[in-house]
């Protein structure tokens, strides 16, 4: 098990180098703009641009530039500096990450709880009005674009523009350490918005998975033993929840790389917004940093899924 994880981690490092190389190719070899010009401000002189190119190392051969970048990333944890405002990419991300983490983890908690419990109830009360209503709502939640849903929530419940002044609206996010109460209330709408489609997907998955499981022979065995129905259902849930729980880290990993739309609608300055801004500014160092961060989360969550799967299902063994 430990050896397996170590092997996966080494593989992950290799993948990150590949991602580095790809972003390098995309943004340095086929650039959409000259970083030196961007950096130089308005009406720069030719000499000024050349000077900046020298400072940024843009004149060196590409493989040297790439090697320098890798060295900085892996040995000094330095992802370079924003061309735009000279801030280090690491500190930019560090500043933005807590908002994204708050948004993602809160929403994930919400959607797994809501999705799984709705799915279980729907499966147990299959074909009842309750089941149909829940699955109908789920279909709507899956189909609704999240930015649209977010705007609807703002329109209905925001303190400033809402029909009912209920919750803090866009741009009210503050850090957890700054004011936990405000942090919480400002995130309620973003959480619900982000969780809506997730909960709907999980509810449908859970319902289907549990319905399949309840037809298994071992559920019949549990009943034949005279277990109370509650215990029988628990055994069914235990098996049917595996595929759902193991899906969760992947989605969280994906969102930690930046929930661009939700962050934009609710004006939360998270990693997603950072990526979006850096792309519009051709701020390559920052783009590369955010891409690497997203890749990192996805690689880690993949490893987590495999470990979790082995933990949840004893039949899975590493080789």
């Amino acid at each position, binding site marked *: 098990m430990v050896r397996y994880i170590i092997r996966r981690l080494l593989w992950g490092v290799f993948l990150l180098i590949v991602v580095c190389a790809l972003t390098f190719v995309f943004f340095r070899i086929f650039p959409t703009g000259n970083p030196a010009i961007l950096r130089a401000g308005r009406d720069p002189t030719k000499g000024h641009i050349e000077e900046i190119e020298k400072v940024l190392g843009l004149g060196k051969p590409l493989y040297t530039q790439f090697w320098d970048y890798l060295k900085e990333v892996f040995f000094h944890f330095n992802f370079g500096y924003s061309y735009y405002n000279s801030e280090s990419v690491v500190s930019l991300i560090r500043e933005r990450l807590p908002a994204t983490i708050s948004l993602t983890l809160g929403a994930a908690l919400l959607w797994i709880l809501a999705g799984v419990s709705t799915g279980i109830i729907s499966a147990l009360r299959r074909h009842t009005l309750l089941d149909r209503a829940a699955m109908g709502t789920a279909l709507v939640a899956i189909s609704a674009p999240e930015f649209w849903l977010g705007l609807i929530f703002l329109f209905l419940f925001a303190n400033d523009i809402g029909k009912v002044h209920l919750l803090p609206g866009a741009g009210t996010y503050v850090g957890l350490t700054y004011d936990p109460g405000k942090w919480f209330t400002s995130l309620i709408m973003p959480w619900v918005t982000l969780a809506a489609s997730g909960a709907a997907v999980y509810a449908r998955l859970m319902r289907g998975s549990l319905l399949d499981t309840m037809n298994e022979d*071992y559920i019949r065995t549990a009943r034949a*033993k*005279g277990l109370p129905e509650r215990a029988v259902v628990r055994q069914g849930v235990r098996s049917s929840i595996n595929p759902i729980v193991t899906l969760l880290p992947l989605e969280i990993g994906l969102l930690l790389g930046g929930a661009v739309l939700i962050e934009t609608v609710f004006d939360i300055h998270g990693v997603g917004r950072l990526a979006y801004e850096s792309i519009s500014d051709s701020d390559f160092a920052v783009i590369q940093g955010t891409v690497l961060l997203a890749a990192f989360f996805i690689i880690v969550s993949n490893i987590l899924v495999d470990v979790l799967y082995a933990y949840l299902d004893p039949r899975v063994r590493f080789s």
Partner: protein
Amino acid sequence: MSAGAPSPDGEALLRVEDLHVEFPGEDGNVHAVDGITYQVAKGRTLGIVGESGSGKTVSSLTTLGLTRRQGAKISGKILFEGRDLLSCSEEEMRSIRGNEIAMIFQDPLSALHPLYRVGKQLTETVLTHGRASKRQARERAVELLGLVGIPDPARRVDMYPHELSGGMRQRAMIAMALANEPKLLIADEPTTALDVTVQAQILALMEDLQRELGMAIVIITHDMGVVAEMADDIAVMYAGRIVETAPAALIFSAPEHPYTWGLLRSIPGLDRPRGEALVPIPGTPPSLINRPSGCHFHPRCAYSQPEHERVDPALEPLPDAGEHHVACLLSVEVRRQLWRELQAGRRPQEAIADVGLAGEAGP
């Protein structure tokens, strides 16, 4: 102790009377069990034999009250120690299941929960019905695994089902069923998924345990070899009905129903000459939604006569052997002549010609 004798028997542990089980479906009702009557006494073994889809499993699941939630329409009586299980509440049934009546299933791998250790699956049976502490339950689990002949039970109790061999899994299933020393064990194809050598071990184990614990067994199988080994009485089921029932010895020495002949003649025997052809039962089991008219077996019966398509035979005792019941429209004399011919190694068509039966209606 006849299995199907309609005469009431005070000593019967389980007595099923005129049981009907129907499942409503979109294409029509599925008549899974159509008026069967049987009984099994304390410490005895009843074998229910038939092809898949003959209703043998459904009747047993109904005994345990496990077909109720599938929306089955059930009528008749299932008397267990004189108490009608069909009128018991779900809660009462729950306290009987796994406690007084236990059941084991065909494929032990799919019948055991893959994500729970064997020990946990054993202790939950003990804990559900007993007043044991967790530690006592665990000790009982180890003891039970030892009882069913699993070596090194203290270690195996912490294993997952997939870590055990097929035979050991079925032993674990049996251990689970025996946890509360049931009065009746229903074994649904307990050896079908196992290797032949392991099959014999499992059957021997069940017989040993029956002697030791004095429980009655209902064994459901399609395999005449299995009932030959285990059963005191045999009921042969076809299309939801019992077509023949008798003490085991009689079923093998003097079978009366053409379907039973088919079952007996379709098993290869080491004691038969090598060149002798097996006689498979032609065709497939009938649909239980639109059952054949008259005798349900007539489309597959080599000896069927034109009127058999219209007349539905009743299960009746033989004039000379009261414990032997059969539902067949052929006369006793013709049946016995046919069976003698078949015994002598003749094919059904030859037997028909020899007996002088009109054979054109048969397949």
